[in-house]
């Protein structure tokens, strides 16, 4: 998409972005996914917004450097048990142009196959939360977060139609209990 003629005015920063999720199987037809969001610092760019955990990377990073950076993210937010079940895939990249910045997110998708080892968050992993897709879209997020989510969801609809037997449906027919009970203070 369009770029300013004077490229040097826009600094391009690159990141590894981890879309970490797990699927709870509600019944033989219904899976309910939850994604890990982290909160940006209270000051600075996109202050206080929620996003997928990300970490800076140099623009010419190798595959192994990308995996290594992703590991740093995973180590920060997931317990050892949670890391055991991960299926990881490099799904592509998402660009976002700000007024004076250009961010490129190299998106990795990491899905926990065994849903029973959530919901504990890793000790010390503050300012993060596991949310459904609906809750994610209702959180304070930037548009690049939506683009990253769409990119990482691309394979899923196809898989749903191809897979016999247990379907992957994103339609959960039960609301989570937080809709009924408020979080205790």
């Amino acid at each position: 998409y369009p770029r300013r003629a004077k490229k040097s005015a826009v600094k391009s920063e690159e990141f590894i972005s981890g879309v970490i999720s797990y699927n709870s199987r509600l019944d033989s037809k219904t899976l309910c996914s939850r994604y890990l969001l982290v909160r940006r610092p209270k000051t600075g760019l996109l202050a206080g917004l929620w996003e997928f955990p990300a970490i800076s990377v140099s623009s010419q990073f190798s595959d192994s450097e990308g995996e290594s950076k992703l590991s740093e993210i995973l180590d920060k937010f997931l317990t050892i048990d949670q890391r055991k079940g991960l299926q990881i895939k490099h799904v592509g990249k998402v660009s976002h142009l700000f007024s004076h910045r250009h961010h490129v997110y190299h998106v990795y998708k990491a899905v926990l196959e065994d849903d029973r080892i959530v919901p504990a968050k890793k000790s010390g992993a503050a300012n993060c939360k596991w949310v459904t897709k609906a809750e994610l879209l209702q959180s304070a997020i930037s548009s690049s977060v939506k683009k990253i989510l769409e990119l990482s969801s691309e394979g899923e609809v196809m898989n749903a139609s191809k897979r016999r037997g247990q379907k992957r449906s994103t339609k959960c027919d039960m609301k989570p209990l937080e809709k009924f009970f408020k979080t205790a203070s």
Partner: protein
Amino acid sequence: MFEARLVQGSLLKKILETIGNISTEANFDCSSAGISLQTMDSSHVCLVSLLLRSESFDPFRCDRNLTLGMKMSSVSKILKCAGNDDTITIRAEEGGDVVSFLFESQNQDKVSDYELKLMNIDQEHLGIPETDYDCVIQIPSGEFQRICRDLSTIGESVEIACTKDGVRFSVAGDVGSGSVTLRQNATIDKEEGSQVTITMNEPCTLSVALKYLNFFTKASSLSGVVTISMNKDVPLAVEYLIGDTGYVRFYLAPKIGDDDDE
């Protein structure tokens, strides 16, 4: 310093097995009131809430409020090493990183001492308001467990319809459909107090997922009676009392919309 001794240690074994099906890690909150726990499953559609009042234990000592975060499978492994007639004593120090379990056989000839590493578990608690339910049903716990198990072979959701005459559990699936009806004040087991009792403001119908009911009914060995409370469109409540001094309560989100589970 926290110390709580339970003479009927088998209760703890049964409680742990039940919770372990729902959540893999949970916090045991210890205070002068007793030991309490609240945790949800990973899909956040069901919640278990446990209370063992301090009167359940002898002695009971809790100098300061303490939160003991444990991995359920690890506690289960340790509790499986207790004999069914053993006394179980739980001990922990403030600021410590282990919780210890002491099992004493009845004649004290066999003494087992286990230490479990604690975890930092960050789970939010939900506030569960006191609710006046439209229907409150008491059923022998074994009967309810049997019904849930039977119906889950036919379908995945059960519709629970309660009227003053009785309660009907209905299910439908690929194989066909079915329903089980229990009459009010019926005597299913010969034992006294093992009746089906319905207390009702108005009739109520709710659909829930059988998968989760089958987790809850693993607590059936704790009590001869299970109490099921229903309001339209709010989570189903399922309660097992633990003696006179405690309870395990389960909450399960209702199915949205019509009762069709397909």
